């Protein structure tokens, strides 16, 4: 398993071979509050880096989920659709959103590592 990478839209990504797993960060869930609805991309579709690939809604508002890299959706996590509160409980673990077959691994280079993301999240929160 790789090191985790992070996007400026508060998604995290891990990868094994050419399969990437994507979810939203703990920081994102803290900003959103209680998540009560999740919508995921359909299996088999292709998504483009920085394009929308889902929606989460808190009691207050809806927010788009973006994909930090391009690829084909090969799996989605139905358990968070059935019980969106799992996203608040374990955002960077069991509550992953979708898996992609990556189109271009070079896209990963533009993403942040953990230290960079923590700094970014702290600054963007202020």
């Amino acid at each position: 398993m790789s090191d985790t990478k992070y996007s400026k839209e508060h998604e995290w990504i891990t990868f094994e071979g050419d399969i990437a797993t994507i979810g939203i960060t703990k920081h994102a869930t803290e900003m959103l509050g209680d998540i009560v609805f999740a919508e995921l991309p359909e299996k088999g579709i292709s998504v483009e880096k920085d394009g929308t690939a889902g929606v989460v809604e808190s009691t207050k508002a809806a927010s788009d989920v973006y994909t930090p890299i391009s690829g084909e959706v090969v799996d989605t996590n139905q358990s968070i659709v059935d019980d969106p509160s799992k996203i608040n409980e374990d955002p960077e673990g069991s509550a992953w959103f979708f898996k992609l077959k990556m189109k271009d691994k070079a896209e990963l280079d533009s993403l942040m590592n953990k230290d960079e993301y923590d700094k970014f999240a702290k600054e963007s929160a202020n």
Partner: protein
Amino acid sequence: MEIKKTSLYQLHYDSGAKFVEFAGYHMPIQYSDGIVDEHKFTRSNAGIFDVSHMGQLFIYGNDDLAEDLERVFPLDLKNLEINHSKYSFLMNDEAGIYDDLILTKIENGFMIILNAACKDNDFKILSKLLNDKYKMELDKNRSLIAIQGPKSAVILNPIINGVNELNFMSGSWFKFEEQKVFVTRSGYTGEDGFEVSIINTLAEKFTKKLIANGAKLIGLGARDTLRLEAGLCLYGHELDKNKTPVEANLKWAISKERISQGNFIGSRIITKQLSDGVNKIRVGIKPEGRIIAREKTKIFNQSDIYIGEITSGTFGPSVNGPVAMGYVENDFSKKNTKVFLEVRGKKHPANICGLPFYKKSYVKGANK
């Protein structure tokens, strides 16, 4: 303009509140527990709501005042008993709603609780309508603190002795620390509860006592999900100048006596709408799936024709699903009518339903 703070600002801050600006005030949207937990705590226990941003209008006068106010409000005020409260509206000539409010008959006059965003304008309108004939005061020296939930009476009564004797929609003066407090048994969450009008300097001390007795501070976020589950209107969403009480499905709040007399502002339109019907009407809407339809979501009928719009929509924590209210054309307002809600470009099935979404547990008479 500077954003105002209520007397409980520091207590909110120390309690981990996230603030938003609401009607010119710094108000807590939620605390560290989050909206869902705060909502559920209110339904099972007792929540404290700082509603000090709302207007507390006192108008002093005698029988003349009741008569003059009857020309403004569709209420039977001359026969309203002392310490009894009524829900009503301030309207324009077209019966469009300037504000919705709670009016209580007190000794020497009336106390009216107004929405924060409307209170200054309401004051101007009322002063003009009453020709400055009466002493009117939008009291800035008093805070308004609501306690809502099934344990409200058990928590409040040891602090303000005697409140458990109050019936729903009535109020009275009591004492707290030798100062007069006006307490009504009312609220806006679908639960039993009280609203306490208290001098600003004692507001924090009083609230800390409620907390010590087991109540918790609750933010505006949960206040919104609670009132929506209870099927209650929020000004600026379900109600505004372009909607009438009949369209808002609030005709129960209009005195039948007064309709037959017809001499109040807006009565011409209200009488007409009651006899001829209305084009659009407020309804409850329950999406079939988990999709949340927010304010301004367009509503379509089964033939894909636009029939209305959502005015409030969220996830109801006690209902454990999405809930919404909105206005639809009258032909599609019957319960169980299937409609479609357009969310992010897709149409999602929903049904018109009765209100409330969550059954109320108001105390009708005390000592039961």
